[in-house]
Each structure stands twice: as structure tokens, then as C-alpha cells.
């Protein structure tokens, strides 16, 4: 089969961990669209879910930092954070090791990857799974793009990765769903937490929704850091998804800055 679903969503830990402190109507609307994404995902009857995330030092550290890493484990666990802090209970998440390996081997024709047979999920993957696969039954193939410890992979290489992922999915017999999860502008875990550059976010999202490759790849890290904060480096996850869905446009189901969640909360689905 191939790619049957593609979307992008936010993963900030406040979405679940500080849920009670957000504007109730905004939160309800955001949660409703996350649930709408779950329904749309389930309607495609995927065999596996690839999650392109940007973790925050749960597994990967500067002693041996991969730019791109793909999970190949039998199962995963998370969250690594305190359950009370994140508002998500610890779960075992099924992997898809055989599919992972086929995707990795295929992608390695085009891009250099690390792989991992051990992986603990942090909020970066657990928050999306909490909303999209609340029973934690759908096998997951995690992907990490290093957006935390520079030097960071160039955006053009993220696009190339996404394209390689698509080619690998197209060669697989399984029905594969892909979601990317990252922030747009945000300054998480700093004194500026809660600051959101809505105008920058909306300009970026317009380019993402239209799959405008040249414009997406034109951002420099210097500009992103200045206008969108260090959290803005996570646009790499959007760029990878855009590469994976090259030529397809996406719909924005929800976008709103929710300061206590420290990010412009986003739900977008690609029209494949």
C-alpha cells in the first residue's frame, strides 16, 4: 500500500500537564480537533504510525547525537517524565520492528540514518499518542530529528529525509500513517515561556500548507532563533513532513496561541 494519512500536531507538555490552566473554550476547541484527527487517522485503518518528533534529551545527548534516528524496537515506553508533571500515565507502546527495518534499509539508499532498538518516549511523542492512539494499540515507528543540540541538520536534509520516507512507505505493503510533531515559534522552558510569534507562525504555516518547498527551505537558523525562539528549530519536523508529502496541500484544522501551553497549538492534515 503506502502512505494513507499524514498530519502535523503540537506536542508541548503543557497541553496535558497544565491543561487546567488554559482558556477552557480554546482548550476544548484544540482538543476537539485533536480528536477529529484521531477519527480521521482511524478511518484510514493504518497498520502502523510513523511519528516524526523532536525529543528533548530523553534518549539522545551530545555524547553521541544523531541528526536523524529511526526506532526499530519491539516496543517502547513512556513518558520518561513524572506522570503527574505531564498528566499522562506510563504505557508500553508496541513497535513494528520488521517494518521499521524495511523502512530504514530503503531510506538508507538516500539518506544517512541512525537507528535505535531501545527508546523511551518523552512528551514529544507521548502527547501526540495520548490524543491519537489513546489505547496505545497501534504499532509505532518513532523518528527523531535533533532540534535541541546544535549543530542541527539543515532544512534541505530534513526535506530529503521526508522524501526518502515517502519512497520507503510507497514500497511497503502496509498502510502507513505519518504524523510530524513540533512547535512553530516558541521559547519553551525559558523565562519567555508563553511568548508566541503568531504572525511568524501563520506565515510559516501558509508555506507549509501550500507545500512551498523553496520558501520552507529558505529559513536560516539565525532568523528562526531570532523570530521564533530556540523552539522554532522544531520546524524541521514540519519540513520533513512536507518532503514526505511533496506536491500535496494540507488543511489547517486548528491554530491558536495558548500561552500556558507555551506554543501556538496546531492541528493540520495533508490532503494526500
Amino acid at each position, binding site marked *: 500500500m503506502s502512505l494513507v494519512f499524514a498530519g502535523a500536531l503540537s506536542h508541548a507538555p503543557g497541553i496535558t500537564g497544565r491543561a487546567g490552566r488554559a482558556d477552557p473554550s480554546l482548550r476544548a476547541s484544540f482538543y476537539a480537533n485533536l480528536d477529529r484527527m484521531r477519527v480521521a487517522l482511524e478511518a484510514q485503518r493504518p497498520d502502523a504510525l510513523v511519528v516524526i518528533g523532536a525529543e*528533548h*534529551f530523553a534518549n539522545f545527548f551530545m555524547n553521541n547525537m544523531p541528526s536523524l534516528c529511526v526506532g526499530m524496537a519491539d516496543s517502547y515506553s513512556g513518558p*520518561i517524565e513524572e506522570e503527574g508533571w505531564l498528566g499522562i500515565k506510563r504505557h508500553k507502546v508496541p513497535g513494528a520492528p520488521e517494518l521499521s527495518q524495511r523502512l530504514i534499509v530503503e531510506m538508507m539508499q538516500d539518506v544517512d540514518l541512525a537507528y535505535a532498538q531501545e527508546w523511551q518516549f518523552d512528551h514529544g511523542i507521548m502527547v501526540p499518542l495520548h490524543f491519537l492512539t489513546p489505547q496505545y494499540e497501534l504499532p509505532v515507528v518513532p523518528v527523531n530529528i535533533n532540534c535541541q543540540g546544535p549543530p542541527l541538520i539543515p532544512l534541505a536534509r530534513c526535506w530529503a529525509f521526508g522524501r526518502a520516507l515517502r519512497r520507503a512507505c510507497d514500497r511497503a505493503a502496509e498502510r502507513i500513517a505519518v504524523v510530524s510533531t513540533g512547535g512553530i515559534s516558541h521559547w519553551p522552558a525559558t*523565562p519567555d515561556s508563553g511568548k508566541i510569534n503568531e504572525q511568524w507562525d501563520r506565515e510559516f504555516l501558509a508555506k507549509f500548507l501550500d507545500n512551498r518547498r523553496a520558501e520552507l527551505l529558505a529559513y536560516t537558523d539565525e532568523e528562526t532563533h531570532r523570530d521564533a525562539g530556540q523552539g522554532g528549530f522544531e520546524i524541521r519536523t514540519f519540513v520533513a513532513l512536507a518532503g514526505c508529502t511533496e506536491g500535496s496541500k494540507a488543511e489547517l484544522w486548528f491554530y491558536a496561541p495558548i500561552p500556558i501551553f507555551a506554543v501556538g497549538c496546531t492541528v493540520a492534515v495533508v490532503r494526500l
Partner: protein
Amino acid sequence: MSLYYVQKLLFQLNRDPLVRKRYEADLDGLLQEYELTPEERTAIRSPDIGLLYVMGVNGQLLMHYAALRGFEWDAYIAALREGERRYGPVRTGLYVRARTAGS
């Protein structure tokens, strides 16, 4: 600068239950295993969350250490602001504030 080892200690503390146990049982012994300056050692032990932030510790590591030491979210953010007020701007890493032209 041994910022790398400050961050490595916090990384291991966040993810490894055995390191967490050692932290609770023998903090001095654990600290000796990392190449840290006296200032870094004191900041971890105190803890001086604001100073660790100003030293350049990544917030994705630091917020979990702060939570471990009993800082609720608002107290964590307040500690970072207090750090900048007491010790000046962040010295290195991702949180160095962009300089305006001429500064």
C-alpha cells in the same frame, strides 16, 4: 567550561533511576564523577536553578531538575528570571539573547 558535564549529569539524572538513587544517597560522590567547577557543583547542590540557566543549561534538562527539587512551574520560571537579574544574561548556548545592532 564544563557545561557539557553539568548537562550530562542532569540528563542522566532525568532518565536513569540508578543515577537518581545515587543522587539521593550520595550526592557528593556522584558530583565527583563529573568534571565540574566549584560554581557548578554549588549550583547543582543548592540548587540555584537561575544560575544553572545563566550558565547555559538547556531548559529541557533544567525544568525536570527543578521539578525534582520541588519547583512548581511558576516557581521554575520565576527562578530563571531571578537568575538573569542576579547573575546577568545567559553566558552561552541557545538562550543567549540576540544582540541588537551595535551592542
